[in-house]
């Protein structure tokens, strides 16, 4: 008798709790939820501005890319996420390949964000830009010796080059762009030359590349612009400078942080509104003020950064290629021993 009562009460409680949570779900349709790999301090001001403008609340949770993607997949149709936000076109491409996004066709977004920073099928849009370019020691290198990423494979740089590991998505995306422009054979030669020129085991952090150059272990490297921005803010007199690679050829390789509307979003219309807001001049101004990145929109310029580092021409390759060529770029690097 006791056993029957307790089983019955378990069933009743389970039914009640699922209907309760369903009610909670329904109530939360007047707010949006964002899953973001970007840290809180970089996204909260944007969401606050959006709420101030539209009255729509934005809830968010932050985490690591792999985990968040798997979570959205597992949640499936029941996912609470309306927007998934992450960094690097390679990661955005991967999320798209896992069917995380729904295609969005918005004139506002297409007007604000240039084509090469958006997925061709509208699955995601870039929201901020970072450049991955050459950094050099002002004490030991004359900028006239620098030109392209490919030139760093030249023997003249033997024992002077510091690079990020092939395991970081920044490197994979850069090599993907080389494959897109030059093809597999030429890029193989370039990577082989880079490996020959290495002064040290590839570094696990961009910051370590910069400290290595400062310590004299190497003379040139390739880093993301905002890492240099942070170092420069701490130490304005550091004898390091950015060099805009490939200005006379394909333009400097850039990458984005971006977002897309999830496939099973409960509130896609508001989600699109949020995405449109994030692409707008108002939001772009806030965004770039936060992290020494460039705006994705061409309608404003990052005057602070241009004042520091000068303006540059971006590579106009559509960033979906960063993801499409990723498997090829990794195989290439593994074959050539670029660790």
């Amino acid at each position, binding site marked *: 008798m006791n056993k029957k009562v307790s089983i019955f009460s378990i069933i009743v409680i389970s039914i009640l709790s699922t209907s309760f949570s369903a009610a909670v779900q329904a109530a939360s349709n007047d707010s949006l939820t964002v899953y973001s790999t970007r840290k809180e301090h970089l996204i909260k001001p944007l969401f606050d501005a959006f709420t101030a403008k539209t009255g729509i609340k934005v809830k968010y949770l932050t985490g690591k890319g*792999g985990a968040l993607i798997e979570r959205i997949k597992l949640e499936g149709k029941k996912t609470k996420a309306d927007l998934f936000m992450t960094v690097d076109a390679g990661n955005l491409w991967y999320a798209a390949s896992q069917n995380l996004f729904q295609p969005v066709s918005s004139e506002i977004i297409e007007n604000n964000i240039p084509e090469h920073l958006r997925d061709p099928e509208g699955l995601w849009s870039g929201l901020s830009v970072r450049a991955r370019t050459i950094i050099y020691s002002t004490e030991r290198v004359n900028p006239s010796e620098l030109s392209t990423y490919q030139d760093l494979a030249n023997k003249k740089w033997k024992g002077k080059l510091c690079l990020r*590991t092939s*395991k970081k998505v920044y490197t*994979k995306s850069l090599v993907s762009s080389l494959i897109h422009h030059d093809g597999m054979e030429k890029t193989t030669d370039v990577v082989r030359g880079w490996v020959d020129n290495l*002064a*040290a*085991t*590839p*570094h*696990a952090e961009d910051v*370590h590349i910069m*400290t*290595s150059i*400062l*310590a*004299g*272990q190497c003379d040139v490297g390739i880093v993301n612009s905002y890492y240099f921005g942070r170092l420069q803010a701490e130490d304005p007199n550091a004898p390091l400078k950015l060099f805009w690679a490939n200005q006379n050829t394909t333009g400097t390789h850039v990458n984005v942080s971006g977002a897309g509307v999830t496939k099973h979003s409960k509130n896609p219309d508001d989600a699109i509104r949020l995405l449109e807001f994030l692409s707008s001049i108002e939001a772009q101004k806030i965004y770039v003020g936060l992290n020494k990145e460039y705006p994705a929109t061409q309608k404003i310029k990052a005057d602070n950064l241009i004042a520091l580092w000068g303006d540059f021409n971006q590579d106009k390759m559509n960033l979906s290629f960063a993801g499409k060529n*990723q*498997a090829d770029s*990794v*195989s290439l690097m*593994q*074959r050539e021993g670029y*660790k």
Partner: protein
Amino acid sequence: MNSKQNNSNFLMGLLALSVSFPIIVVCSAWFFPGTELWGHFLENLLPELIVSTFILLLGVGLGVSILGTVLAYLVVMVEFPGRRWLEWALFLPFAIPAYVLAFVYLGVFDYSGYAQVWLREFTGISGFDIRAGSWAIILTFVLVFYPYVYMMARASFKRQKIQMIEAGKMLGAKPFLVFWKISVPLARPAIAAGLLVTLMETLADFGVVSLFNYSTFTTAIYSAWGDFRSIEVAAQLASILVLIAFFLIYFEKKSQR
């Protein structure tokens, strides 16, 4: 066997099966072989990572065995000032993740770290990349994992009957012989157990090898899945890891006799 024993045997069998299920799944990948990707991994990644893993296990194994055992012996058998404090302080690396300790050691000892900067300034010796080769990562793992052997050896030494040691001394054995011929053989099962755990942890590590950019099975498995979305190749690599683990357990069992 009565029915109660039959029941518990059956339950134990069920438990063993459920625990080993992931291993069975991982090994079953070998029945779906022969993809182009496996060929690429075999040719470009496996040779280096097998050698690297072997060197790592050998170096770390020797290192923690010696360091952990010697430290345990000293704090248990030798009286010196600060012994009581040291006995507990030597456990501290347990509290710090391997990755964090590696980050600190690299920060201090790599080319641009304090130690080498000081060295260059005061002696003019040119700097070097400590992440090249295997010795620095072996040393890092030894300093992170020696507490496993230390803990087991210390417990064993504490339990050793003082009569055996005194017998050895009375028969004229010098302190080192007492250590090497009496105490260590008695502690061997404990040392082997600590060694086994250390080697398993080393095989499974991802953080330290990433910082050192060292090639091991974990980084290859991560690539098989992360870069190529091949659960089969990832599982095939994982099953080799499982095989190595089985060998280690087998040798540890053999050393118990």
